Structures are given as structure tokens and as C-alpha cells.
């Protein structure tokens, strides 16, 4: 028993919360398979979760970076909508090509990052207020760019959107006895690459470690010789850049531009990060956890939908309940751990 509690003490906050998240996700998925029937056994169900949430994974990665550094960015949903609309208008009305539209997405993200990062890091304004204004601005600009929602008809873009990457060996035989391949969209590949990149960044680079240091304790980070302002600045740039990329992936998934796109995406991203064990106080968090956070969030949405509780309000209530449980569990676990260390 004492061995276990020793291990418990030795675990870092990040790993402890990560373990909770991963265990909960697998329990939930197994529960879904047991109680909801065979739908969840099909690999394609899982891949569909990835397909619909590729953009959210990317957004949540950015969100986690900022949250680890001790900030927050609620403009990511707005940036997603703005990127979708700008790219849609450029592709359809201006007859542009796909590569340039990707560049536009990245530039919008970068511009957002520079402005917000500067205001937060160098002018010491609360990140919440800055990104709140950023969200307002992005939503408003989306309307100014174009008010009416429309589908993009650009051939090259549609071809790219329809591209399916077949996952070998995961297909299933459907009711007609025909073999159907399991597939993922391009966005999923992008999202996975970003998850791996960000994981490596946080774990093995100097910048990544200084994110944790600044989030954990600004004063100590400063004494260690870390440039706190620059670190904060870079975290916001990375987050907004990822929001730009995530916006394009979202655009690639839906293939249209609309003001209402990605409504509430920022809250979902924050929720996924929290479920994934990132703490808003900063200094604690993990990208793999965030990835599982997104999966948990969307799995519970799927469970609710397939349980026949398809009235819209159940989704909101279950997500909120889950968020509540996770927050309370986190808070209790951390308080206990602190007490254990004190003893």
C-alpha cells in the first residue's frame, strides 16, 4: 500500500491527470461498446469521430499551449470562422487557387498571434480580455467579408475535400456483403502530425520547457533566465497559428463559409484541454491528454446521440456534467496530493 502511495507522490501533476483522462476515455469507449451495441465496435465509428473533430484537435493543441503558459485564448473559434469565410470568398469569387488559400489561412492566424501576443506579453493586458476582443473582431469581420453562407464550388478544392485516405485492414463488411474500406480525411493526418509535433515541442525543446516554467511560476522562470515576455508572446503566436491551420482543416471538412461556423469551438477547445488534464493556472498539461480530451468529448456526444436522446439540449447538459466531474476530480486529486506531500 505504501508503495502505491509513494508512486502516487512521485508522479508529476501532468502524468497523474493524463492517466486519469486516458483511463476514463477507454472506460467510456468500452462502456459505449457494451451498452450501445455494435456501432462503436466498427473502426469507422472511431475514424468518424476523428474526421469530424480534426479541427478541434488542432485548436485544442494551441489552446493547451497557451493554457500551459498560464494564459487563455478564446478567439480560436472566431478565427476558424474568419479563415473559412476568407478562404471561401477567395476561392469562389476571386477564382483563386488552393495553395494561396492555405497561405491566407496561415497569414490570418499569424497576424492574430502577433497582435494578441504583443498585447498580452508586452503590454501586460489580461489574455482573457484581449482574446475576447479578438473573438468579437473575428466574428464581426466574418460578417463584413460576407454575410450569406455558401458552399464552395471550386473544383480543385472540392477534389481535395473529397480526398479519402484509406486505412488498410480496418474496413468492415456491410449488410450487402460488400467490403467497405475505412477512411480518414486529410485533416486527420494534419491533426495527428500537429499532435506529434506539439508533443515533441513541449517535451524535448527549450521553448516547450520554458512554456511550463513560465506557467508554473513566472518569478522563478525569470530568475532562471527565461525571457518570460518572449515566451508568452511565442505561445500566443503558436496558438493563433494553429487556430489558422485548424480553421483551414475545418473549412476542408465542411467546404463552406458561414458566420455561424465553429460557434462555441473555443469553449469546446477549453473543455477538451481541461478534460485532458491541462490546468488553467498554468504549468500543468500534456498534448496527448488534450488529444484524448477531444476524443472523450466527442465520444460522449456520440453516445448521447446514439442513445436516442437526440434533443439538442442533452448534448449540452452531458458535456457540462462531464466537465463538472472532471474539474471536481482534478481539484480533489490535486488537493489530496498536496496534503500527501506535506506529510
Amino acid at each position: 500500500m505504501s508503495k502505491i502511495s509513494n508512486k502516487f507522490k512521485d508522479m508529476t501533476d501532468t502524468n497523474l491527470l493524463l492517466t486519469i483522462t486516458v483511463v476514463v476515455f477507454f472506460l467510456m469507449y468500452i462502456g459505449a461498446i457494451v451498452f450501445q451495441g455494435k456501432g462503436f465496435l466498427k473502426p469507422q465509428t472511431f475514424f468518424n469521430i476523428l474526421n469530424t473533430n480534426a479541427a478541434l484537435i488542432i485548436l485544442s493543441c494551441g489552446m493547451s499551449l497557451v493554457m500551459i503558459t498560464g494564459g487563455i485564448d478564446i478567439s480560436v473559434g472566431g478565427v476558424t470562422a474568419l479563415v473559412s469565410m476568407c478562404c471561401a470568398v477567395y476561392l469562389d469569387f476571386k477564382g483563386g487557387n488552393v495553395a494561396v488559400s492555405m497561405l491566407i489561412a496561415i497569414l490570418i492566424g499569424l497576424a492574430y498571434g502577433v497582435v494578441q501576443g504583443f498585447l498580452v506579453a508586452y503590454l501586460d493586458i489580461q489574455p482573457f480580455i484581449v482574446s475576447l476582443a479578438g473573438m468579437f473582431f473575428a466574428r464581426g469581420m466574418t460578417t463584413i467579408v460576407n454575410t450569406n453562407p455558401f458552399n464552395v464550388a471550386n473544383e480543385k478544392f472540392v477534389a481535395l475535400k473529397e480526398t479519402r485516405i484509406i486505412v488498410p485492414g480496418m474496413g468492415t463488411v456491410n449488410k450487402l456483403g460488400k467490403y467497405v474500406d475505412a477512411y480518414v480525411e486529410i485533416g486527420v493526418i494534419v491533426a495527428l502530425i500537429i499532435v506529434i509535433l506539439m508533443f515533441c515541442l513541449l517535451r524535448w525543446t527549450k521553448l516547450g520547457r520554458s512554456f511550463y516554467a513560465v506557467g508554473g511560476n513566472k518569478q522563478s522562470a525569470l530568475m532562471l533566465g527565461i525571457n518570460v515576455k518572449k515566451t508568452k508572446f511565442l505561445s500566443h503566436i503558436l496558438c493563433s497559428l494553429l487556430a489558422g491551420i485548424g480553421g483551414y482543416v475545418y473549412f476542408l471538412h465542411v467546404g463552406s463559409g458561414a458566420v455561424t461556423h465553429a460557434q462555441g469551438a473555443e469553449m469546446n477547445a477549453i473543455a477538451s484541454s481541461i478534460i485532458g488534464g491541462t490546468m488553467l493556472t498554468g504549468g500543468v498539461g500534456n498534448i496527448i491528454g488534450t488529444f484524448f480530451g477531444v476524443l472523450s468529448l466527442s465520444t460522449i456526444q456520440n453516445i448521447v446521440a446514439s442513445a436516442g436522446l437526440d434533443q439538442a439540449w442533452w448534448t449540452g447538459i452531458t458535456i457540462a456534467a462531464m466537465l463538472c466531474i472532471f474539474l471536481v476530480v482534478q481539484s480533489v486529486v490535486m488537493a489530496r496530493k498536496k496534503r500527501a506531500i506535506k506529510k
Partner: protein
Amino acid sequence: MSKIFKNQIFIPVAALLLLMLFNLVIDPSFFKISMGVNSAGNPVLSGYLITIINNGSELAILAIGMTLVTAASGGQDISVGAAIAIAGSTMLRVLCGTNTRPDTLRTPIFVAFIVGCLVAMAFGAFNGVLVSIFKIQPMVATLILYTAGRSIAAWINNNELPIISDPKFGYYGGFIPGIPIPTPFFIAMGCVVIIALVLKFTNLGLYTQAVGINESSSRLNGINPVFIKWLTFVILGACVAVAALIKVSRLSSINYSVIAKDIEMDAILAVALGGNALSGGKFNMAASIIGAFVIQTLTTTLFKYNVPSDALPAYKAIVVIALVVFSAPTFRDAVSKFVKNIKGGKSKEVAHV
């Protein structure tokens, strides 16, 4: 002179004057107030200024609670919009029962308001427990209700949209016959007077600031920070209920996904505009309330120049960023240094001569 600039109330008042000046220069008809007659045959005042004090009322009421929450916990409640939906839905449910088009109200409006108030305060208490006992950051704790609130509101009324035809219910968000000034303004002023009296005659203000500035030292001085934090959230719940009554009364109905949309953002902005630190501590209630009316003036001004309501946030964002940058201590220091340098350079020249 510098005393005036340093006073916290200077920022929102200056912003208000600036907006008024802008309107005066571009189009003085902004200040025109005319007497008209509404559809019920009552004399009413109309004009942009009346619109501001009418629509700014809910915001001012919310700003009161939000200021206290911000000061005590160093965070903001982002669930007020959703909580308004819940409180409003509850009131309608109490008034209408299961019949969505009642000819007569089932209960007096006062009873419905009390029930709505209790529900809103209960949800406020829920947020408060998460923040004060479980030590979750306020923004994250209230994220729960933000996500679920509108769903719960729809669920309370079985996703139906009751409509109340009794004209008496419309008084709270409209006009009382014979009084040409919109009722919400009186309600808001009532709330302001109550909070002013509370702050003057109780230790609430002092304790809130103490908890916000340093939680551990306030505990050592015999204040219970957990209770104070919890209390501010419950007070915000009461403010939410009053705002919900006005909101629901305006329409005599409810729309779960649209009612009080984005009002949490406006309320937080009002607090920030009032020069209150969003990280908690000292607060100035009057500045927050004026801040709320500044936000409403800005909104009304933008509407006047035919800015579509969806594009409104973009302009608001620019103004907000400008205000926040100007009031940022770092920016002020830099400016004063710059000014000093120029002055210093001049005096040196004089010395040389």
C-alpha cells in the same frame, strides 16, 4: 489635474464624453428626445438617449454583480447569459404552467419573480461552490453552466416558447402607463441604490476587496474567504434574476438560444472599462455602472449608423482594445516616460542656452 486623471472613474467618464462628443459633431439629432404615444396609447419618450438608458439597464444590473465577483475571486462569471435564459424560462414556466398560450396568469408576477430569483441564486451558489470550495478558476467553473445553461432553459419549458398576452407582464421591460420613462431604468436605479446602501452600511465591499487582494492574509484577519466568494456569486445570481425579468418582459416570451446572447462579454467589458482590475482586488462600483452605459452608448451609436448587428462586434472590439491599451499601466508608464523625455530634452536645451 493629475488627481483627476488618476481617479478610476475618469476612464469610463472620459470614454462616455468622447462618444457623446463624436455623436454631437457627426449628428446632433442623436440627443433629440421626443414625446410619442406607444401602441397601448400611453405617452412615452423616445430617442437615442432613452434607448441607451433603457437597454443599458440589464447591463448595469449585471455589472454590479460582476464587479463583486471579479473583485473577490479574480475571475469572471461567463455563464450570466445562460443563467438569464434559465431564470427567464423558470419565470415563464411558473406563470404559464404547461399551457403555452395562457389567457390568465397562473400566479402573480411577484411569485414568479421570487421563484426565478431562487433558481438563479441556486445556480449562482453552484458556481460559487465550485469556485470557493473546490478552488476551480471562475472562468472554467462557470464554463459548465455556460455550456449547459441554454439547454437547461429549453428543458424547463419542454422546448416550447410560451407567450404571455397579459399586458401587465410587459410593464417591467416597457412602460408603466402614465410614466413616459422606461421601467427598466427605474429597476436599474433601484438596484444601484440598494447596492450603494449595502456597500455603505455593511462590510461587504471591504471584505470583498480584502479577499481579492490577499486571500490568506484576509483569512488570518478573521474573514472567511470561502463564504465571501460564495456570497458574491449568489449576489450575481440575484442580479441575473432581475435582468432576466426585464429581458423576458420585453418580449413577453423567450428564445432560448438568443436571449441575452453575448451579454456576459458586455458585462465583463463594463467591469474592465470601469478600470477595475480583472485579476481582483480593489473595485469601484460607480465606474463599473458607468462602464455599462458606455458599452450601451457604443452599441446604440453603431446601430444608428446602420452597422448590421452581426458586424457590430468587430467595431466594438477595436474600441475595447483601444480603451484597454490606453488604460494599461505599462502603456501609461511608457507614455509618461516619453513625455518626460521630451520635456527633459527641452529643459536641457534651455540650460545650455
